[in-house]
């Protein structure tokens, strides 16, 4: 049984933030969802201080072996999450990791303090793929910004802090080192890759936001290289993700140094993908097979 930052888990497969709405899934599939919950821990979608409606549609676009999304972090805000969603997520049979995102150190402080004091929350993931309103810089793209944020948040809680790394940098290992030095307990990677598509019918950007983030098997080799570079550079555990759709894929991420793996886009295709991948991983059917040339 894997242990992650002191949290005991049934198996090493969790979900990527923002890729599974357990509350909606329970309404659709009923309590069968709880009886065979696909993940060994549940990561919430990202919570922001105030409610967000998310981006205008069109929000998703299928690509070869993947998809681009620009959802825009719709959520109920911190107060709405704590009052309405957290009690329902606490009924899940697995530890809960809450993802938060702010646009300033003050916002992050409010979020971490609000979430950390709730005993239902096992760990906090920091989504740093957003600009700091003061500097205008994307926190997760700057080692100095990342280290400063962690130094501010670390004293607020003893609960594990996980930094979700963006892949849209030249050197993700430098950001991971900064996170570790700032006191992060773990890192998770990769977030989606910046991507665009154009509607062949109109020649206009396919997504209303103009661009979005690429996920799915298309990003897997990129994720593996970044994971390899990051795990070589830091000693805190890493959650590896990026296009995992089988036990064999998960085994590659573990070979590249991941302590846990996360499944995202594959859950859209198969609501029980997490359980399937965990079972494939444990059955030994997940040996890495050389790809055909």
């Amino acid at each position, binding site marked *: 049984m894997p242990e992650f930052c002191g949290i005991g888990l049934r198996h090493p497969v969790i979900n990527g933030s923002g890729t599974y709405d357990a509350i*909606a899934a329970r309404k659709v599939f009923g309590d069968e969802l709880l009886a065979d919950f696909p993940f060994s821990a549940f990561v919430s979608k990202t919570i922001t201080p105030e409610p967000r409606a998310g981006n205008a549609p069109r929000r998703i676009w299928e690509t070869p072996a993947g998809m681009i999304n620009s959802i825009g972090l719709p959520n109920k805000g911190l107060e709405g999450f704590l009052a309405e969603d957290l009690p329902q997520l606490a009924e899940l049979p697995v530890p809960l990791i809450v993802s938060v995102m702010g646009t300033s150190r003050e916002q992050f402080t409010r979020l971490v303090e609000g979430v950390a004091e709730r005993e239902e929350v096992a760990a906090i993931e920091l989504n740093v793929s957003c600009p700091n309103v003061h500097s205008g810089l994307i926190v997760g793209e700057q080692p100095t910004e990342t280290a400063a944020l962690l130094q501010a948040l670390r004293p607020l809680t003893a609960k594990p802090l996980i930094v979700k790394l963006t892949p849209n940098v030249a050197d993700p290992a430098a950001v991971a080192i900064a996170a570790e030095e700032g006191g992060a307990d773990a890192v998770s990677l990769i977030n989606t890759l910046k991507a665009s598509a154009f509607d062949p019918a109109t020649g206009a950007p396919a997504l209303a936001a103009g661009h979005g983030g690429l996920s799915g098997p298309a990003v897997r080799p990129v994720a593996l290289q970044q994971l390899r570079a990051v795990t070589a550079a830091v000693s805190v555990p890493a959650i590896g993700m990026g296009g995992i759709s089988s036990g064999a894929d998960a085994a590659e991420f573990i070979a590249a140094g991941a302590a846990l793996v996360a499944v995202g886009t594959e859950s859209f295709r198969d609501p029980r993908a997490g359980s399937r991948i965990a079972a494939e991983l444990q059955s030994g059917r997940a040996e890495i097979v050389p790809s055909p040339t």
Partner: protein
Amino acid sequence: MNAPFGRRLCAVSEGRDSGGYRVFSLLDHEGPEPLPGQFYMLAAASRWAERGGRPFLPRAISVAETGPAADGIRLDFLIEGVGPGTDRLCALREGDEVWLTGPLGNAFSEPRQASPRAAGAILVGGGIGIAPLAILRRTFAEQGIPLRALLGFRNEAHSGGLELFCASGGDLCPEVRLATEDGHRGHHGYVTDLLLTMLEGDDAQSAVVYSCGPPAMLEAVRSLCAERAVPCELAMESPMACGFGACFGCVVPKPDGGYMRLCVDGPVVRGEQIAEVTHA
């Protein structure tokens, strides 16, 4: 009634070409009988997300009809090949297998639920959107709900919904009126022309309109009904990756700001639940 958790493999029991579209049936041994308006996520078990490429995501398809079958239920789908996913679904043949998740989403309501004074139903379908109205028509007919139907399509090559609709009970519907854009059958023009005429008639005020079709048609239906305070329910479509609330891709704007997910809060929406049906 909840959908079985996860996807399941179902075999194609039959398939046929119909008016430019493809109709195929799946044998489902596990799921509950779907309600009119509900949909499934479908992906062929082979030549789908293999060696990368497209199609990658499953496709959301409304159920067109259902009925008992050996050791389960039969699910009929009407497909127009318009891209890699629907092209692959059109190529399915008897014995092929399909990954299926569902039934998903909400359903059309009965006229009395939509409006206490409603006496009957007006079904307005366009093109491929006639599909969910076939199962709705049969269900209403079985319940003795009076209904009239207005069906429109571009031309013969987009008429597959008509055959399916007629198969749902030819003698149960006293009035089916057609409109075609090329004028080869029925009224030469839009199906919404027929709706306008009907809504200006004596008894239409006591009906509920049920509609599915292309976005421009749905918007015309929505606004015609809104102007006359006639309740309407629209089965809508939006790009959808998962079908169970996970991806947040399939949203439509609400009138008071914000968005609703069509997979879990739809696909059937009441006219007043949305600002408008956006269309190019």
